């Protein structure tokens, strides 16, 4: 055991560098291909814009604007020179809420996706790589979680755990991993058949070592493409849960803005500036992630590339 580890540890120093170079080249090639996808580039543009807005929120609008106690705008005031997108029912600037809401929406989307990716990739790798009962059990588990209806579970968990940002992240993370797991599983199964994994097995490399060395790097591109699509779904889910009143009431997200707008009857009061912009932002960000995800899938999946 030890000798093999040493041999794999010492011999391929140059090989490792070669691998790294190959990967860098692959990434470069991928980027070149990605750039040819107009829709993917549009998505990237939109995303960069919103990420900048989220990062620069403190510069763009003071967080004081989120505090109802210091808000002194008119109640549901129409857009004006001072309040570009009008005010909400507490006299806060809708634009400020929108800017700060982007943080929560993106944060929840990314964190939930991270959870989903970690669980999904891990279980997908295990169920794909290991045969026998471990593989079977993890596969069953994936199938079971696949049939849990998302919204009902979210509603139930919210009534069990209470309403908080963390719960939203948890619910989305926990319900969205099975799709990833199945994808990773099928990728792993096909990679496992490939020669170099068999070869590694022949020289007696440990299983986890093989997973880390050979399988994982090869499924990573798929995980990456899948991630962007999952973020889109996670952001949509966050918006929906917040709208149903399951979100954290102390934080402003686009979903919670829409919830408030709906609750105070903004259609009747004609305050379109309160109900339209958050929705448009959600559509744009989700669209951005979806476009990027699709473009990535086509870049990374040769079969899809061939057909278009």
């Amino acid at each position, binding site marked *: 055991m030890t000798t093999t580890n040493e041999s794999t540890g010492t011999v391929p120093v140059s090989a490792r560098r070669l691998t790294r170079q190959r990967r860098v080249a692959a990434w470069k090639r991928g980027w070149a291909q990605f750039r040819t996808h107009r829709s993917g580039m549009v998505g990237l543009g939109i995303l960069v814009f919103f990420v900048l807005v989220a990062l620069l929120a403190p510069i763009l609008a003071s967080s004081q604007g989120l505090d109802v106690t210091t808000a002194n705008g008119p109640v549901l005031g129409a857009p004006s020179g001072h309040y570009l997108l009008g005010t909400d029912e*507490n006299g806060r600037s809708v634009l400020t809420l929108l800017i700060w809401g982007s943080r929560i929406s993106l944060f929840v989307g990314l964190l939930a996706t991270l959870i989903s990716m970690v669980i999904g990739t891990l279980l997908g790798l295990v169920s794909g790589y290991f045969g026998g009962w471990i593989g079977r059990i993890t596969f069953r588990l994936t199938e079971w979680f696949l049939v849990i209806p998302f919204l009902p579970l979210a509603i139930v968990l919210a009534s069990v755990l209470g*309403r908080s940002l963390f719960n939203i992240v948890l619910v989305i993370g926990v319900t969205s991993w099975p799709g990833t797991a199945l994808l990773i599983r099928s990728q792993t199964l096909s990679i496992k058949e490939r020669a170099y994994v068999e070869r590694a097995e022949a020289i007696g490399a440990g299983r986890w070592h093989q997973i880390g060395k050979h399988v994982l790097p090869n499924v990573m591109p798929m995980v990456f493409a899948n991630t962007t699509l999952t973020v889109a779904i996670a952001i949509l889910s966050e918006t929906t849960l917040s709208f149903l009143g399951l979100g954290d009431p102390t934080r402003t997200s686009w979903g919670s803005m829409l919830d408030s707008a709906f609750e105070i009857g903004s259609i009747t009061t004609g305050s379109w500036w309160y109900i339209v912009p958050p929705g448009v932002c959600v559509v744009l960000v989700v669209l951005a992630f979806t476009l990027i995800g699709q473009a990535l899938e086509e870049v990374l999946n040769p079969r899809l590339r061939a057909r278009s």
Partner: protein
Amino acid sequence: MALGLVLGSLLPAMALGSTAQAKDKVVFHVGILGEGVDSLNPFLGFQAPSYEMWGLTYDYLVGYSMTDMSPEPDLATKWKTSADGRTWTFTVRSGVKFSDGVPLTAKDVAYTYNRVLHGTVEQSNWLSYLTGVTSVTAPDDTTVVMKLKKPIATLPLLPIPIVPEHIWKNVSEKDIKSYAAEPSGGKPVVGSGPFRLVQGTADGSTFKFEANPDYWGGAPHLDEVIFQFYKNDDAAVQALIKGEIDFVEGITALEVKSLQGQPSITAHNGNSPGFDEIAFNAGSIDVKTGKPIGNPNPAVLDPKFRHALGYALDLPTLIKKVYQGGGLPGTTIVPPNYKAYHWEPPADQKFTFDLAKAGQLLDEAGYKKGSDGLRTLPDGSPIGTLRLAARSDSPTSLHTMDYFKQWLSDLGIKSDVSTYSSSQLTGVIYKGNFDAFQWGWYVEPDPDSMLSYMTCGQRNGSSDSWYCNKAYDKLYNKQHVSTDQTQREAEIKQMQEILYRDSPYLVTAYSSIGEAVRSDRFACLVPQPNPGGVWLEQYGVYNYIHMKPVSEASNCDSATAGGELSGAVKATSSSDSSSSTGPFLIGAGVVVVLLLVAGGITMMRRRTTVGDRE
């Protein structure tokens, strides 16, 4: 040609639609927002709209006045109390019939009360009104005799619907917990009220009532009342604007404001007998051992500290910003709706938004500012951070606490707002793990039960502030058995004064309910209490009986008391343009469009087979 066929086949449908409309029934469509009817069985339901349904279906022994909800004759035409106050004799109106023709007698009244006294599930709703009653008997068809251990000051108010014995005796103790009491087989629910429920089930969204032409109080001016429950404000308000409904209840103050601009609609925020408060942990203990439980901050246990904070609440700002104008600044736990019982603090005692005064009071009580600008406990140790709890399902709750936090920080007190769902907060309160929370109560016409929640005995029961004051309890027990109304009112006011001083609750607002009516169609609705009160969810059924379609509303008569009812809704001109055939034309139009699309797709399929390029 296909189009013609479709249209032709739809014509009879439209004709049918118009004939159905042609019948000149006066139908009052009510839209209610929020919670629905949870049960039509008066022994089971908890929610406000259920009470409304029972009110139309059944009668009560004693009614409520429109001005201040004081007792008025209803099924009982008169009542008298024995000298020791322990025997009440009610004379029941004769000639009252249930909707199935069976006469309603004193026996039905006694049956209903006894079912509560000796039942299980029945007790949960109504026992509190009969606590201390030893027996209820009906010596003859027009007399009900009620024997008590001690006098009960809340009598004769008894908001228990009188159910027909001949129906309910067949409902066993086991069955009652799922007995629906809904119309079945086309037969309405049996009751003696002014309306009969002909259609509707507990979880449903539509309830249809038909007028009871034989109602002892005179036939209503409405032929039907239909309740429609909405979850979405916009849907309800738009239905009102379009004339699909005639009344909407439970809209926001902002919506009331926008509806007040409509000529055909009259809208208002009716004062409802409820209040919102910031409650403190006044001393959570294990009621069995008397040992403190939970971890309240020592500061909030001190009445002086709590009282000082009363001057740190800018209530007008709260009403304007948090309540969007729907509500009134609050003072005590008995709302001003109940004129007889409400104690209004005199100017020198009344809280005003005065941070300097609050600071001064805190200084006097020993909560001085330390070197870091934060106030300390009298022993000099830091107060730390007060934990303010808000309910996650209520933005009002959260924003009230946000403001409170701000004002506390202005005073040099740190605090933190966290949110809980209502059921979670209940748990937190019972464990005593809080310093303050925001919630509210609905107060009944007799404030006795509300006052009882602040007694020592209610700790770990209905008390949520863990407040306990022997002097208060003594007054409570005294008024509870009082037979002298004037003296009782004085005692109740004194109790409010004690509470105001000890401040387990800082009452922030008296709530209001947004209501709007199509005053181009219906008029003569009177608020309860008059003036300033609500039109719909009242004690009693006055408006359902006395409101009129505008065509008959030249003068709004007052069946009860002379010219008192001046606040009635007046008829306004109509700006109604929606035609009742609109829906059917559009429905038909949609069907036609669907058929055309289907036909178009089929034809396109045929055509594409001709175009055959690759």
